[in-house]
């Protein structure tokens, strides 16, 4: 699903990522861990083409992202779900509208949109909050809406950049449970985090970054 080869990202004289190699297979659940400034977010941004590599290759679903033309980037992003630490929900729109937003722009019929939105909200256990505005929801609920929005278009890959960064430990655990369920539906999941408890609890593949390099890559690993 993801193939990163000799990837380097440089900002001026600072290296955010250095000669990084990483392979993630379809259906995997991978934690990307490391302290702040290790390069986790930069790597995540590379995957959804928000940043471009200084050198090396980032291949997602067989597509070399560095070669994707600017106008084709939205197509790429629609083929993956993205979950952010700060949820990035439209505050004036309801839960339903937030989840439906992107698929509406694709010209789907109301019937299809309705089925997809309700299905996605059922997965994140928010079927009863269709008409609520994000401001009326707790942080955990907002992140669940964000996950529903990420999966509504049926992407093969979901990228979550510090999805529990703004949440308490119990809510964080609930969010990870949902992501685990999503993974069991066959969607590849890549989660960046520095939450030890979560990583140690789920025992998934753990890739550790430090100073822009991968220093550890362990199956069923823990946060060391």
């Amino acid at each position: 699903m993801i193939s990163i080869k000799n990837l380097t990202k440089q900002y001026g004289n600072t290296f955010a990522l250095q000669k990084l190699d990483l392979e993630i297979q379809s259906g995997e659940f991978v934690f990307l861990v490391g302290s702040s400034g290790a390069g986790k977010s930069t790597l995540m941004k590379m995957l959804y083409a928000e940043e471009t590599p200084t050198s090396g290759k980032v291949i997602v679903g067989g597509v070399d992202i560095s070669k994707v033309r600017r106008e084709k980037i939205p197509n790429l992003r629609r083929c993956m779900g993205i979950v952010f630490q700060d949820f990035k929900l439209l505050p004036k729109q309801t839960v339903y509208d937030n989840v439906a937003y992107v698929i509406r722009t694709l010209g789907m019929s109301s019937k299809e949109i309705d089925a997809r939105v309700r299905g996605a909200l059922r997965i994140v256990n928010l079927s009863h909050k269709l008409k609520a505005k994000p401001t009326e929801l707790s942080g955990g609920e907002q992140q669940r809406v964000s996950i529903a929005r990420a999966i509504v278009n049926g992407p093969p890959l979901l990228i979550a950049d510090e999805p529990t960064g703004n949440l308490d430990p119990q809510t964080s655990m609930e969010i990870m449970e949902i992501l685990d369920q999503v993974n069991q539906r066959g969607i590849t999941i890549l989660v960046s985090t520095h939450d030890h408890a979560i990583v140690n609890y789920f025992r998934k593949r753990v890739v550790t970054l430090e100073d822009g390099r991968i220093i550890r890559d362990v199956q069923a690993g823990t946060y060391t």
Partner: protein
Amino acid sequence: MLSSLPKNILTELRIIFRVGLETLKGIKQTGLMNLVIISTMAAILSIFGCMFRTSLGLSTFINEIGNVLEISVYLHPNADAQTVANKINRMPHVQRINIIKKEDAWADLKRQMTLPDINNPLPDTLHVKIDNPQNVDQAVKRIKNLKQVEDVQYAQDLAKKMKTVNDISHAATIIVLLVLGGLTLFIISNTIQLVIQSRKQEIEIMRLMGVSNWYIKAPYIIQGAFYGFCGAILALIPLNILQSYLNKMLTFFGISNPAMATNIVILSLLIMGIVFGAGGSMISVKKYLKV
């Protein structure tokens, strides 16, 4: 993975409908500013429309007056009037020639005045009509070159003045078009910039979620075009008032109204409003909306 969803006409129509809704949302969010922008656009387009319409009316007026002008060509006593008339008739811009035989002219003069019984001193004369006052000078030069022609007379100053007024009128319309066009672009681009700034967060989310670039940009461009269109419609009111005055003036001088002038001006106003409105938006979208 990058293969896009199958598209059919229904899908496209739904997307267009959604873009329309996004545009309406943007207009709604702009609130009372909409009225200010549309009024300003209407004022600008009114000035242009009135100038353009006046210029068209003036051109017709000048052409009509100019067409009444004739060049009087006096021939040498031994010249054959018909031969010279044929030569002049072949010249460019010549519309019509009347031959006034010296005998007829003398008889006319004798009818109007008491004259002594002397030999007819008048030459054969040709009255030449030129298609456009602007071409009179050129025609006179050509006619003077004919050896059978003794003298040529025409209302030289009047023709020149009319040509100047016509030229100034056209130039003023073009200058006004350029200045007001620039002003329109400036106003619309600034307004759309404000709309973009107020929806910055929403745009950012749309962008990250993979909403297509044109879907994000199109509503702003349509919103600009909408302001231009509404401004042009409002500008038709003062244009209509001016129109009635011009009609009265032309009727007073016995000149028919220029064909299609009003339609041309209305069409120009709508095109100018929409093109400059959308153009102003595009400037802002290009500058402030990075997707």
